[in-house]
Every structure is written in structure tokens, then in C-alpha cells.
């Protein structure tokens, strides 16, 4: 039989959900030994395509060829049997049992009496893991290891027992720090050299350019094209994903200059040695009118902790917080709300939106909280406010009465922004406002931050994406190990910040 260079190829995949054309005539082909990025905004059809390839959904039309032969993938189990393994963002392993058990589950080596041979099991598991360059104690419970290690274990399991020829990684890096990501990439390169085809889905452009060979772009359920990574400039990739021309994207970098200069004067918000034991070391931060201060640092470096202390989610036990020069004495979200501070929290689903309430109700929630129980905003006024912000922020929805949980991630984030903007805050704290949302919405949110600063508001901008922090902020403060370690002006470059974050400068 003639060997094609393609291990997996899908042609003309079409999938319709009630009311939505999720995929329309999409082609996708994966070579042996390549890392292939699947790119697109939220709702472009990436997940649906993956689901069709792994048997979670059946395509309405189209053919899938695997290893040179046409196949119909009936179910996820079937996909695994023929050699298509998928590792999802949320690792689906058992964190309470040992690493070895996780790797070997269902394939435990037996001893003479038919009992499980723990010794053999641990040896085999350690050996399989070491193939990926992971050397850990396999007898410890999986839960004590980082998410990166857990993902490696999931990959090991997929490769070892499902003899996978195709590995699909669905946003594996969104919760990994830089070091862990590097570890994962090393593994990916190793697998690639063994001839395994890898599909890589991510929102991080840097990573796409670091590790992938080819890129397939989807937009609104349609196939845009497949490109060699090395010959596709970033702006072109983004332009393809957005369906916009390149010049549109330049606007953002220019808009920063439009922002009025920050005048030194009365600080809007100031922390003096504010901290909390085992939470955040005493920290000084000063925020002027019109200013955007970026907080950079790894996950768990203390950036979210600082935001929580300022907003009153946690109460500081040392130092003080001054707002417009006045000392804050009681800490709670309601007090912050009254003091004109707003926080868009990091975890949008758990701490941000109220999914089963409508967009209108979500938008007026904080404003209503400030008015209290008995000063109810009349319904008509509620609609006015909701309509105003839906228009202002470009929230895509047929009506303000739509349930918020039905919106895409980017639109949900805008609803939370709207909730706080409706209270007319002077200080807006944005904790990872662009995480997991598509490039278009990202750009809009960054623009909005700059506009707000231009209108006399102040922002604290927290993000894992340095590029974005640099683009939006007048000053960047770097945190490491629950401590503020450095402060930079506008002219700093991402290399310097990265090294400061890592602590090797």
C-alpha cells in the first residue's frame, strides 16, 4: 500500500447544530511528524472539528482518512483504539491516586498470583515517563504535581497504551507557566521526531511560532487556509483569523499615543506597605489619574492577591490603603464599590458572571448593589443602561434578555466590564481580562482600557501576556513570590520584564 505523507486527513467536513452552522466544508490534513496549529477565534469551529475527528460528534457530511484508509469514527473510545489520542485542557485523570496507577490504569502488570505487581507497575510507569524526559516519583499521588506534569502523565498514558499516531492537544498551555510550557514543548518535539502527528490548539501566538510547522486557520466555521508557519507573518495570521486587513491592526499601537500624559499629583489610589501574612508581602503601589499600571508576574506571584486586597476580597493585616488620600478602614467589595474601585476578577466563570441571569441583570448588578435593597432601578432604566453598554462595548447578542451563560467568553468578559463601568468607577482593576478570549475581543478590550485612561480613569492591568501589559500600561510592576520586585517605566522591553519575573536578573 502506498504510504501517504498524511496520517490524518479530513475533507469537506460539515456539521450543523440546531440554528448554527458550526462547520462548513472544512478540510484539515495532518502529516506524520509535524506539529500543526489549529487557529481561529472563539466560535470559529476548532472544538467542533476536534470533536468530529475524535468521534464525540458525527459530521453531517465529509470524509475522514486515517493512515491511508477511510474511517468513520464512532465514539471517543473508537478514536483511541485506532490511534487518535486527545489531551484536554482540564486533565481527566485521578489526582488522588499515584502517578504510576494513573499511567497504568487498566493495564496493571500482574504478579504470579494474579495480584497487581506494584513493583513492576512503578518501574514500567517510571520508564514510560522517562521517555518523555519526566523524572518524578511515580508512587506519589498525581495531585501533588503541577498541571504540566499531570498533562505529561496524560500524554504518556495516551501514547503508551493507545499507541497513538495522532495526538491532539486542546489548549494544553493555558494554565502552564513559562517553564512548564517549555517542558511540554520539549516533549512535543520529541514525539514529532518519532513520527507522531500533533494537533495543537492554543490562544498564544508566541507558542504557535515557537513550536508548530503548519497552521490551519478557521473562521466562522469555514476553512480559511493552511500555511507554513515559517512563511506566515503574525499580522497576516491575525488578519486571517479576524477576516480583517492588516492595517486595521496597526491602529492599536498608535492609539497609545493618543492617551493624555499622566500628571503627577494627588494619587487616586495608594497602598503603603499593605500586605497580609502568607498572602502578600507589604507592597507600595501608587496610581495616578489617567494612568494604567500593569502588573506582571507568573501565576501565583501575588498579582491577583494584590488586586484582591485592594478590592476588599481579603483584608490586609499590615499597612494602609489610601483612596484620594483618605485612609480606607473597612474592606469589602461593597466598600470598594462605594469608593469607586472595580475589579474584573481572574476567574470569569466562578467569580465574574452570574450565568443564569440575563445580560441586563448582570450589567446592573453592581450598580444595584451600590443603590442597595430598596432603591430598585426601574425596569425601563435597566434596559437603557444595558442597551447603552451593549452598544458601547459591542456585545454581540440578539437581546439584553439573553442568558449570559449563552454568550462567548469574550462577550461575557464585556458584560462584566459593563457591570463595572455602569458604576462609573475611578479605578478599574482588570485581572486577566483577555484570558481565553479571541483576538478580536482582546484588541477591543485593550482599546477600551486605553480609552478609559484617556477619560480620566485609572487602571490596574494584570495579564500573563507581556506584550499586552506593555502595550496598555504606562508603568509595569513585576511581582515574584508574593512580593513586588521591580517597577519599570513605559520604555521597558519584554525581555527585561521576563528576566525579572524569572528572577535571574
Amino acid at each position, binding site marked *: 500500500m502506498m504510504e501517504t505523507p498524511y496520517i490524518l486527513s479530513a475533507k469537506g467536513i460539515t456539521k450543523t447544530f440546531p440554528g448554527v452552522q458550526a462547520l462548513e466544508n472544512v478540510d484539515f490534513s495532518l502529516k506524520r511528524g509535524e506539529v500543526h496549529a489549529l487557529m481561529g477565534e472563539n466560535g470559529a469551529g476548532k472544538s467542533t472539528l476536534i470533536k468530529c475527528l475524535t468521534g464525540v460528534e458525527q459530521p453531517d457530511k465529509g470524509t475522514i482518512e486515517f493512515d491511508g484508509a477511510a474511517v468513520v469514527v464512532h465514539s471517543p473510545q473508537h478514536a483511541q483504539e485506532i490511534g487518535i489520542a486527545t489531551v484536554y485542557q482540564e486533565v481527566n485523570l485521578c489526582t488522588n491516586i499515584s502517578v504510576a496507577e494513573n499511567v497504568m490504569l487498566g493495564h496493571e502488570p500482574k504478579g504470579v498470583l494474579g495480584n497487581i505487581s506494584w513493583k513492576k507497575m512503578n518501574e514500567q510507569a517510571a520508564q514510560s515517563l522517562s521517555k518523555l524526559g519526566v523524572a518524578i516519583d511515580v508512587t506519589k499521588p498525581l495531585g501533588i504535581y503541577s498541571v504540566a506534569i499531570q498533562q505529561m502523565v496524560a500524554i504518556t498514558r495516551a501514547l503508551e497504551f493507545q499507541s497513538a499516531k495522532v495526538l491532539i492537544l486542546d489548549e494544553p498551555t493555558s494554565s502552564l507557566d513559562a517553564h512548564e510550557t517549555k517542558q511540554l514543548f520539549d516533549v512535543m518535539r520529541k514525539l514529532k521526531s518519532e513520527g507522531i502527528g500533533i494537533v495543537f490548539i492554543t490562544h498564544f501566538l508566541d507558542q504557535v511560532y515557537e513550536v508548530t510547522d503548519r497552521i490551519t486557520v478557521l473562521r466562522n466555521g469555514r476553512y480559511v487556509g493552511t500555511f507554513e508557519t515559517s512563511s506566515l507573518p503574525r499580522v497576516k495570521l491575525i488578519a486571517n483569523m479576524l477576516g480583517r486587513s492588516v492595517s486595521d491592526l496597526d491602529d492599536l499601537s498608535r492609539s497609545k499615543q493618543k492617551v493624555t500624559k499622566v500628571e503627577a499629583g494627588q494619587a487616586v489610589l495608594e497602598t503603603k506597605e499593605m500586605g497580609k501574612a502568607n498572602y502578600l508581602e507589604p507592597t507600595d503601589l501608587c496610581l495616578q489619574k489617567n494612568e494604567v499600571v500593569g502588573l506582571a508576574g507568573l501565576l501565583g506571584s501575588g498579582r491577583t492577591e494584590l488586586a484582591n486586597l485592594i478590592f476588599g476580597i481579603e483584608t490586609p493585616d499590615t499597612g494602609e490603603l489610601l483612596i484620594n488620600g483618605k485612609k480606607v478602614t473597612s474592606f469589602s*467589595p461593597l466598600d470598594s*464599590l462605594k469608593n469607586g474601585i472595580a475589579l474584573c476578577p481572574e476567574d470569569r466563570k466562578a*467569580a465574574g458572571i*452570574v450565568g443564569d*441571569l440575563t445580560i441586563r441583570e448582570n450589567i446592573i448588578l*453592581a450598580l444595584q*448593589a451600590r443603590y442597595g435593597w430598596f*432603591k430598585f432601578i426601574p425596569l425601563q432604566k435597566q434596559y437603557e443602561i444595558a442597551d447603552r453598554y451593549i452598544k458601547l462595548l459591542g456585545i454581540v447578542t440578539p437581546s439584553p434578555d439573553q442568558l449570559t451563560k449563552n454568550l462567548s467568553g469574550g462577550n461575557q468578559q464585556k458584560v462584566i466590564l459593563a457591570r463595572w463601568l455602569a458604576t462609573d468607577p475611578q479605578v478599574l482593576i482588570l485581572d486577566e481580562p483577555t484570558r481565553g478570549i479571541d483576538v478580536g475581543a482582546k484588541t477591543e478590550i485593550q482599546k477600551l482600557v486605553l480609552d478609559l485612561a484617556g477619560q480620566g480613569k485609572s487602571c490596574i492591568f494584570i495579564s500573563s501576556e507581556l506584550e499586552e501589559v506593555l502595550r496598555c500600561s504606562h508603568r509595569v510592576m513585576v511581582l515574584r513570590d508574593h512580593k513586588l520586585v521591580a517597577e519599570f517605566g513605559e520604555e521597558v522591553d519584554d525581555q527585561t520584564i521576563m528576566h525579572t519575573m524569572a528572577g535571574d536578573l
Partner: protein
Amino acid sequence: MKKSNLFDKFRHSRLFWPLMALTILLIFDAFYAPSFFKIGVLNGHLYGNLIDVLNDGAPLAIVAIGMTLVIATGGVDLSVGAVIAISAAMGAVLINPALGNQLITNDILTADRTNTPLGLIVLADIAAGTLCGLWNGLLVSRVRIQPMVATLILMVAGRGIAQLITNGQIMTIYYTPYFWFGNGFILGLPVSIYIVALVFVIAWLLVRKTSIGLFIESVGINSRSTHYSGISEKNVKLFAYTFCGFCGSIAGLILSSYVHSCDANNIGLAYELDAILSVVIGGTLMAGGRFSMASSILGAMIIWTFTLTMYTIGIPANTLLAAKAVLVMVVILLYSDQVRGLINRLGTKKGGSNVESN
């Protein structure tokens, strides 16, 4: 076209399914117990099974209103039965002129008079129940005990407290003005129906004409997001439990007035479970969130219509619980998404041209 839109709107409203269930029950009655619909006039008062449903179901309907709010915050109140006993005991003791260890003689008890003004008796009833609710609310919102455990405390202790109040005796009440709440009539209809209406209007104004209703739903859906939005989810919960206690006290007032006595061990027995059932039949999710008090009242009416129907067609009282279980199952099946999908599909097939045209 407009007509079908109105129907669609109705079909998706919260009242639709409880009304459906009630209609089915009444249709059943029309065939098997036609006497159910007879309404007569006696001494200028209406009487008949339908009136009985409203009258007998009134205490449950009132408790269901309070329970709806508690469940909407994601909690549950198991103590309402005990709260009913406490407030009834309070009333009975205040009416009885001989308190404490004094020997209660028959002529004191049957004197049909009391040393306490009626207004004060009612107020003490309500205060006792509301205080119980406040206690539950404090345990849940401030001490952060799980609602089921927190209210279990009062569920167990409450009847003991009620017995302490009544000195461990079943107290018969001989005071005619007090009987009005459970037995009186206004314009031919039982007073209890007006009390249900009054409590509902109070609850509705308090919840829907202020932001409390929105906050309750928000807390029930996502209490953390609600907290982050500057809403004190503690106070919202405190309110819900306190109001539930208030509702329990009104139910206690009506029940003790209705039976002319207070038996601390048996008055309002299992009301908490029937109230939860009413709320569930009304379509409010046990997980919390969106709620409808009117639907819960309908739920209470369904339970009582069913109970009286069973009596009318001659099901023995001791097997009633088994029959009730069947009702619960049917209703819960009606709420299951799968079954609804099936019904909707059948409906669409028959309706033919029910295709979206945008």
C-alpha cells in the same frame, strides 16, 4: 400568528407546568369524582371540595412562599414544621390565662376569655416564628453551617421548645376571636385565603419591587460572583430564612386557630417536606436561582387537590402517602428535560407548520 406567540410565551412561563398538572388532576376529578366540583352555600358561606382545597392548603401555601425564597438562595429550611409548633404554642399559652405551674382547672380553660389582647397574641406568634427564622439565617449566613444541618437543629429542638412553652401539654384553645383566622369567612370565602393573598402580596412587593429578588436569584446561581459584585450575600440569605420563619409563624397561627388547639408534637408535622415538594412542583430548582412564588402556591394547591381527591374517591388515609409518591413521580417526570422534549416533539409533529421562519 400573534395568538400562537402568546401561547408560546405562556408555555415557556413558569406557571405553565404546574397549571398543567393541576388541570390534569381536575380533569381526573371531573370523571371519577364529579362531586368534587360542587359548591354550595351554607349560612352565606361557600363550601365544597374546591373551597376546602383553598382553605386546607392555605398554611402550606404560605410556608411554600417562604420556602421558595430559601431554596432560591440555594438552601433549604427543614425547621418550618417546628416553627409552626413554636408559634402555635406561643399563641395557645398567651390565650390561656393560667400560666406556668398553676393548676389548670376546667372552668378557667373553657371561660372563652383571655387576659391578653388579641393583637398582642398575633404579634407574639409572628415574633416567635420570625425569631426562629432569624436564628436559622444567622447560623447559615454568619456561622456558615450548611443549610440542611443548620435548620435540622431547630427542626429537632423546635418541638422541644414548643413543649417547654406549653408545659408539655396539649393545649385546647377556648377563645372564639382567635378561631376567626382558621374558620372565619369574609364575603363568603374563608379568611385563610385572604391571608395567603396578603402574605403573597407582601412577599411580592418585598421581593420584586425591590432589588432583593434579583439578589436572591444571583446568590442562588453564583454566590461568589454575587459577592464580587458588592452584594452582601450574607444579608440576602439572612433575609430569606427570616422571611421563611415569618411565613411559618403565620401558618402556625392559622393551623392552631383551625383546630382550636396546639399539640406541640403534631401540629404542622411534615410541613417542611410538603413545602419543599410544593416548591419543586412549582418548578423552582433545588439548586437555587430563578424562582416563582406563585408557582409554589400552585404547587401547594396541587398537593391539596390531590389529597382531597384521594379522600373523595375513597383511598384509605393510611395509603395516602403511597399515592402521593405516585403524584410526585409524575410531576418530576413532567419536569425532566427528556420527557418534555418528547412532549414538545409530539406537539410539533401535530402542529405541523411550527417551523421557525427567521
